[in-house]
Each structure stands twice: as C-alpha cells, then as structure tokens.
C-alpha cells in the first residue's frame, strides 16, 4: 500500500510537472516554505531547513520551469459566444485590450546539476552547480495595434511599432555560498559567489520599428533601428553581395558543455533578522552581476529605412526606351532594397564583446510565527532586468506538520493579476525529501487564463537536523 501510494505520488508529480511546465513562474511560495533547503536560492541567509548536510543529485535535486507573460492565452484564444460558444475563437480585440504598452513573454528553466550544503556551528556553506536558461520576447501593444488596425487609420502619421525584444541566454552557474549567524542567532547574513560561464546569448539592445504612412497614401516608410548582440558557436556566412545569409554551425557538444569561455560573476546577498521571537524579517538581492561574452560574439547594428512608393512606371512605358525597366525588374530592385533593410551586411556585423546582465531579484519579507508549526509570511519580490521591473507580493501560510511534511499556501498579486493561489508541498521520507511548489495553482484549473505559472520540484538528500536554531 505504501509503495502504491508512492507510485501514485510520483505519478502525480510527473503529471503535475507535465501539465505545468508549459505554464510556470519563478516561485515565491517556496521562500518561506518550511523544511526546504532551496530557500537559500532566494536569500543566502535564509535556511528553512536544519539538516546538517544537504545533497542534490544531478537531475533530481531540482528543476524549475517558469512562464511569465503580460497577457494570458485566454486573452487571445477563448470560447466564443452565441453560435460560436463551442469553438475557440481568436480574439484580437480582447487580446489587444489586455495588452500593456510594452509586453513581455518570458520563459525560464533552471536545473540543478549538483548541490552540497553543510552546517558548522554558526555557519552554512553550500556549493552548487546549476544550468540556467531564459528566453524573453517583448513587443509593444502598438505592434498589435498595427496588425489589428492596419496603417490606413494613421495616414499622415508615424506609427511607432514599439520595441521588440528577443533576449535569451544559457549559462552555467558555479555557486559557493556562505552564511553566518550573528547577534546570538537573531541575525543571519549570507552571501553567495557565483562563477558564471556563458554558453549562449541573444541580447536585444535596441529593436524598434516605425511605419510612416503619407497623408495621401503615396508612400509607406519603414524605419528600423536594430542593435543585437549574439554569442553562440556559429559563424555568420555572407552571400556574394556581402549580405548575411545564415550561420555555419560550429556546435561541438563537449565543448559546449565543458567549455569555460565567457566567464562572469554574480553575487547574492541576504540577511535575516529576528525582530521578536515571532516576527522575523529578511531581505536579499539575488544575481548581482553579469556575464561578459567575449567568445563567438557578434553584434548587429542596423539603422535603415525603406520607403515604398509603389512601382515607378515612369520608365516602364516603352520597352524600346533605352532606360526601360520592367515591372519585374523594379520589383526585384525593391526586394533588394527591402532586403538591405532587413538583412544585415557584413559591415553591419561586428565582433565586440558585450555584457549580459542577469535578471536581479530583490526579496523583502517577513514572517509572523503563530507557533512553532505555523507561520504567516509576507514577501515582496522585485524583478529587474534590462531596465524593466516587475513586482509581486505574496502572502503565505507555512506549516510544518510532524517534522516531515511541509505545506505552504500562498496568495500572490503579480503581473497585474490577483488570482494566484500557490501551494508548496514537501514530504520527507527518511533522508529523502520530495518537494514541489508553485505560485499559481489556479492556473491548473484554467491555464489559458494564467499569466504566470511556475513550478519547482525535486528531491533532496538530507542528513541530520542538529542545529534547529537555524530554522527561521
């Protein structure tokens, strides 16, 4: 029966993972979750678990999937009304109304390769190896406005299609953490040094489009302003006209996995202060640092404009005219011009190192302990990346039942949505601890309406609970 339960449990976790990997967000529920050693990822001074030694094995100790969007799928696709009530309709108007001026769709994936943490009397030392990947697409509402309305209502005006963002990275993180208990245990401070090795990066510094339509419609001008940085094991190739035509793939799996190029650094800093026996406050700042990409780097800078004024038939009337040009030739010329706007030339691609900043998170929170088994937490999380910020507030109830079963219920207000109920569960089975946490459990009931979905789950190997006072 027990084995059967475990099978069911594992199946459930897999099912859960399978269903929410497509819609997840970085978890704040886990921040105050009792009995979880992963709390140090959010605050290096925060230790919710008192095990003497924590080991995470590759592929088991933790995975994180997160999707975060400024809009929900439901804004775009939902069931219709009336005779369309049984069909999914694409609702551009609704989608458009739901958008902010600038919108982002972000995806994150973290995987712990190795984790080792152990305690001394007043300190905690950890070492971890993680693979981190992120991809982010950003676009302005005005772009959708353009698609929705066209340019006809804007004759005589310039339509700013806004900034487009295509950011993506993959790096390996070697992190060495240390936290120290001070003031007789009332204050804990911690820091984590991270050695980062960039594998891949796509960075949009600038990507703007404007469409200017003449008042009489006689011209449509497309203006591009592009600044992209790129690092990958590829070599750009050019055609005979020196236009970029593609990449030569230089990908070597072993080099990619074991390579140590593009080294950067980052720091985590944190502190936990016990104000009263029942009230604890904490703060941290995560991922202060950057990765300077120097290897296989390419920079694309392109500022072009293309004005389409229709085909000029002035010299296409008489095919005996020495200056005659056919419509086909004119169209070919226009395509060449358009290609020049879109496709970078060799001269527009350089190889200068660039820095990739990490998304920096600031956590400020506090708990009130009702008793030794239950506390209530309030957490503010500030996300900063490339000048963009996103703030979320989470309240949670964190309980430790029977010293082996931890459960956290949370409510978060994030991304302008206020229906995010989170849940964290951890079960200790001897030296093994299974856990999962998500900030938006409601997304499961209607994933289409979710704007932020995340889940972190894994398995910890825990030994000893000698120093209970580290448990905040």
């Amino acid at each position, binding site marked *: 029966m027990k084995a059967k339960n475990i099978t*069911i*449990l594992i199946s459930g976790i897999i099912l859960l993972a399978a*269903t929410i990997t497509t819609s997840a967000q970085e978890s704040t529920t886990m921040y105050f979750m009792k009995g979880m050693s992963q709390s140090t990822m959010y605050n290096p001074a925060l230790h919710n678990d008192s095990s003497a030694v924590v080991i995470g094995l590759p592929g088991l100790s933790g995975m994180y999937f997160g999707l975060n969007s400024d809009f929900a799928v439901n804004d775009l696709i939902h069931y219709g009304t009336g005779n369309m009530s049984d069909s999914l309709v694409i609702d551009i108007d609704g989608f458009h109304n739901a958008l902010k001026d600038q919108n982002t769709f972000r995806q994150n994936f973290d995987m712990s390769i190795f984790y080792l943490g152990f305690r001394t009397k007043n300190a905690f030392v950890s070492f971890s190896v993680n693979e981190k990947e992120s991809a982010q697409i950003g676009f302005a509402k005005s772009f959708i406005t353009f698609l*929705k309305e066209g340019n006809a209502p804007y004759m005589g005006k310039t339509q700013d299609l806004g900034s487009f963002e295509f950011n993506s990275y993959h790096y390996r993180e070697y992190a060495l953490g240390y936290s120290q208990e001070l003031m007789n245990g009332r204050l804990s401070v911690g820091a984590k040094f991270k050695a980062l090795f960039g594998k891949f990066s796509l960075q949009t510094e600038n990507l703007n489009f404007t469409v200017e339509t003449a008042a009489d419609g*006689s011209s449509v001008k497309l203006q591009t302003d592009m600044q992209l940085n790129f690092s990958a094991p590829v070599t750009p190739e050019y055609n005979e006209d020196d236009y970029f035509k593609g990449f030569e793939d230089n990908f070597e799996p072993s080099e990619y996995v074991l390579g140590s190029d593009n080294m950067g650094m980052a720091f985590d800093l944190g502190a936990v202060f016990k104000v009263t026996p029942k009230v604890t406050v904490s703060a941290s700042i995560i991922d202060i640092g950057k990765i300077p990409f120097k290897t296989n780097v390419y920079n694309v800078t392109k500022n072009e404009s293309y004005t389409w004024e*229709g085909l000029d*038939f002035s010299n296409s009337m008489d095919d005996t005219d020495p200056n005659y040009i056919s419509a086909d030739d004119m169209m070919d010329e226009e395509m060449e011009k358009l290609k020049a706007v879109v496709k970078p030339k060799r001269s527009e691609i350089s190889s200068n190192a660039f820095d990739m900043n990490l998304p920096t998170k600031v956590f400020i929170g506090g708990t009130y302990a009702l008793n030794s088994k239950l506390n209530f937490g309030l957490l503010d999380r500030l996300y900063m990346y490339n000048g963009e910020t996103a703030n979320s507030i989470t309240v949670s109830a964190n309980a430790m039942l*029977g010293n082996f*079963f931890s459960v956290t219920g949370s409510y978060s207000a994030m991304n302008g949505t206020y229906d995010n109920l989170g849940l964290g569960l951890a079960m200790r089975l001897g030296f093994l601890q299974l856990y999962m946490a998500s900030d938006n459990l409601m997304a499961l009931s209607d994933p289409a*309406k979710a704007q932020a979905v995340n889940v972190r789950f894994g398995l910890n190997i825990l030994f000893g609970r000698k120093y209970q006072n580290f448990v905040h």
Partner: protein
Amino acid sequence: MKKFYYKLLLVTLLFIANSCNLDNFDFGKLSDDVNISPEFVMPLASADITIWDIIESVNDENDTLLKVGDNDVIKIVYTEEGIYDYQVRDLLDLPQQKSFSSGNKVIGNISLDNVLVNKEVSLRDITDAVNGNIDNIIPLDGTVNVFPATSYVGPPPAVYAVPDITDFTSVKFAKGNVEITLQNNLPVPITMEGGLINRQTGLGFAAFSFINLGPGNTETITVSMVGKTITNQIDFRMTKFETASTGFPALINLNDKFKLSMNFKDVEISEGNVKTDLQVISGFSGSFDFTFEDGVKVFEAILKGGFLDITSSNNSQLTGTINLTFPQMKKNGNPVQVAIPFSGSPNTVGLSNAVINLASDINTPYNKVPYTYSITVNASSGYINYNSTNFLTLNVNLSNLDYKSIKGDFGNKNITIDNGSFNLDTEFFDKISGNFKLANPELQLILTNAIGVPAEVDADFIAQNKSGQTVSLNPVPFRLATPASLTSPAVNQTITFDKTNSNIVNFIALPPSESISYSGNIRFNPDGAVSSANPNFIDLDSSLKIDLGVELPFELQVKDLTFEDTVKIGSGDMDMIKSAELIVNAINEIPLDIDVQLFFIDTISGQQYSSSAKSKLLTAAQISTAGVITPVTSSNSIALDENELAGLKKANGIVFKGMISSPENGTKTAVIYSNSKLNMNVVIKSKIDL
C-alpha cells in the same frame, strides 16, 4: 499520523491533477474566423510621365498611327497608300504598229542630157537641091571672081537629112529647148530660112531664120521644145537661101559650107523611148497621218524603240533608188533617212530614241509625220519606154513602237476612280462610344503626279460606323498640279479637306469605325483644247498616284466618351477583402476628366454581378480662354463596398468602362499635347478580413 499526511498529500496532488483543465487548448475547436480586419493603405504604383508615354505603352502594332504633330499635339495619322494608282500607259491607247502607203507617186518628167547634132551644107549641096536657082555660081567654081548675089526661095525647099540621134528614138519634151546654131563658113554673108522636121511625119518642130550672116560668123536661135514630140530622125528643111555679092573678087569654091548645129538642151521628156541618163529627181514629199483613240492629237512623240520598214513598188521601166527622208523624225538630231531601190527589198530602220514631230503641218499641226524623197534614176543601157505618168508607191510600216513620251492634246477624258474602301485600322474607334467630336480633323489626298495634263479630281468619301450609319465627306473638287515639263520631276501635291471645305468634322465624329469608302473621277483637260505651245505631255512610264492620309489631331470636344475593356481575372483569394478603395493622386496637365466604372461579370454568360459607382479617376487640367493649360492636383478614389466586392468575388471578368470628357462637362475643346505631364500615384486602401 504519518499516514494521514501521506493521504492528505496524495489527495492534494490528485486534486491538483484533476483540477487541471486543458479544454482551452483543444485547438481542434479553433475557429478559422480570426475576426480581425485591419485596413492597410499602400502605394501600388507611381509615374511621372507624359501622355505620349502612356500612348506608347498601350500602343500595339496597329496603333503606330499615333504621331506627334509639329505643334506637339497628338494626332492619329493614317495613310492608305495607292487608293488610286494610274499608270500613264493605261491613260492612252497608243498604237504599237502603224502602216502607211504613200499611194501612187507619179515620177513625172525625166531629164535627158544635151543632144547635139550637126549638119554641114556646101554650096554644091545647095545648087544641087534648088533646081538651078543659084546655078549662076556654078561656073565660078574655082575662080576668083566677085561672088555674085544669089537667091533661092522655095518652094520647094531644100531638104537635108540630119544625122540620127542616138539618145532616143522618140520623145515628147516637157521641158527644154533646141539651140540651132548657124556657122557661116562661106566667103559671103548669107541669109537662110528653114526648119527642122520629123522625117517620118514631115512635121516641123523648129523654124529659124538667119539674116545676112557674115562670112565666118555664127548665130544661134533657140526654139522651145516643150510639148513637142520628135524622133531620132530629123531633117533640115531650107526654104530660103540668099547671098549678097561680095563686090570684090574672091575665090569661089562650091565645096564651101555652112554648118547648122542643133543642140537639145535642158530638156525633160514626159514620154518617149529613150536611153535614160543617171539623174536625180527630187522634190517629192508627203506625210503619213496617225490616228489615236478618243481624238487624241499628238504633237510630239519620243520613242523608246520601234522599227520603220519601207518597201516600194514601181510601174515604170526605170531603175533607181528612192531616197526617203523624214525631216520631222529625228534621231540624234538628224532626220531619219532611208534609201530603198525601186521595187527592191524592204529596208528597216530602228527608231530607238527617235523624236517625232507630228505638228509640222501648218494646217493640221498634229498627228502628221511628213516625209520627202528623191529618186535617183539609173542610166539605162538601152532604150526604154517612159511615160511621166509612171509612178512609184512607198509602203511604210511602223512596228513595235514603244513610246517614251507624248505631247499633244489628249482631249476631255474622264477616268473613273475605282470604288474602294479601307479601315482606319485603329482600335481607337472600336472601343469608344459617346459624344465625340474632333475640332480639326483633316483628310488629305497626297498626289504624286507626273502627267502633264490638267485635270480636276472629284472624289467623295463616305464614313460608316459599326451600326451602318454613314456620313459623306462632301469635299470640293480640286485641280491636279502638273509638272512643268516632261523633264520635270513628278509633282507632289497635298489636298487637305478640313472643316472649311468639307463635312469632315461630322465625318470623323460618326466615327468611321467600320470603314471609309471612296469613289470619284478624274476629268482631264477640263478647260478644253490645248495648243502645241502649251501641250499636254506625258511620260509613258510615269503615273498618277493618290495616297490618302487622315490626320486627327487630338483637339477633342468630348462628353462621356466611353471606352471599354474587359480583362479576365483569376480566382484569387479575394474572400479576404472586405473593402477596397483605389486612390489616384495626380497632378494632371491633361485637360480631360476621366471617370471609371467597373462591372463584375461572368464572361461566359455575360451576367453582371455588381458594379462600382461611377467614380472620377482624373480631374482635367484647366484651360484658360487663351488656351493655356494649368495642371490640376486631385485625389480621386474608386471604392468598392462589401456588396460590390461580393460581385467581384463571383466574377471571372472585369469590364473597365472609362468615360472621358473635355473640360467644363465636355463643352470645351481639349487639346492633347504629347508632352502634357501626368504625375500620379495609385494607392490601394483595403480592409482585409483575416
């Protein structure tokens, strides 16, 4: 307690799992209806062109008729070459062969060389013949005495035979004299009377009298022989012989003589049996008369080729040669001459480049070719009978005559211009309807004339449209320009029919979409006969060619001039189009308003599904009263709403109906200059249902 938590965890996980609602991701239920209809505006084309550029672009091979005039006005220029091509050789039916006979040409008198016969008579002959009348001197014979006076007066006369004449046996003189000369070889003056007689008939034909002719003296008496007939045997009949006495002694010898000479001199005979002498008889002449059809009078003809064959016949016993001369038929400036034997073989003369003057006769100064001839009579070896009424006949045959040119009076000749028709061969008229009028159309006859004959051309042209309606041009007759001379080049002449001298405005306004037919005639010498001083002339290799030109300057006064064109359209994905608007922004120097209406049809059944509203496409440029054109900036559009688009989606063809009007609703004339500019851009504005 642990079991409880396990169960709680399991229930929680199952709840979570079961609460997962993926219905919104059943994309099998996703509707195709995106419900987004952006409206895009985009320029399609632009052009900064002249109207000539437009014309060139739509100009198919048949419409090379469009030209630019000297004043830059565009015009349709149509040329129909050779609506009348008259070869001069067709104008006159000139004989290629002509035979003439001179008729019997009497030879007339022939001449004889002088015939001289002498007769000496001695005193003894006289004394013997006079029967003793002067016997008184007989005794004195051989003595020296005073010669005594003697006298004998017949009758009977003393007759002495004259030696026979060998030049003829008998002749009748038509001309000439006989000179009778007495040479007195006697020692005393003598007086003698007598005459010459035909021995056979005894008829005298010459009488003479010498009075007191001194010794040693000579005296001649001339007696006309005209009309007298003699034989070769004549006698000297002396009717009186007298001598005076010498008065002094002298030797008297009865053998002393006087000599009587008879010289027939400068004589021509009209008949006789003679030995002819080599002689040339000239002064013969005549003319051959040509006749041409239709009473054509030819003054001069120049031949490229031909032959003159001459034969003769002769009823006399003469032999000789006829030397024929055509003084008015010259080759290289020299009269054509030919010598032919009497009754001999024919002689042929080539007439290449011969110039024949047929107007040398004062009384009939045309169609006559004069000739002269002389006769060379050979000397006969014996006697031949000859009569002045003997005649010769000349037979002249002109063959293979190839005329180069003719001068003359060709008379009032009417030639009908064969009926014909042509099509202006331009699609322009085929595709238009509506009120259409060209202000200054012209129809031109381009004549190339090398015929030197005054002529008046009376032609008419009839326009016919597709409906069978006709309009006549009603042009006025016109005179044909002629070259100044035969050597002058052909005259090019353009006769223009315009609104001042014809009905051409209505003629073109019909319009002649089906055909233009023509007919007429050419009347030569409308002013009557011409003189040789100012003759008609034609080069047989020249022609009268009439080409036709139609010039239609685009000076239009049109109201809703409609043209249509149908294009097939494919079954493109037009379902996505909710509305469409074609915007034409233009700066127009062309003084024409152009409206457009589109009809969406089934090209097979002809069914019309829908149509657009009539919309202005181009706004006409303004024309001042002085005719100055000011460009007009306009922005016009053709919009299709959903209903019209529904028709378009069903259709497989679009009929483009264009309506053109000159300014001020077609009341003003629009002059279309080739360099009038049209700066335009075409913009499509369309709402697309995605």
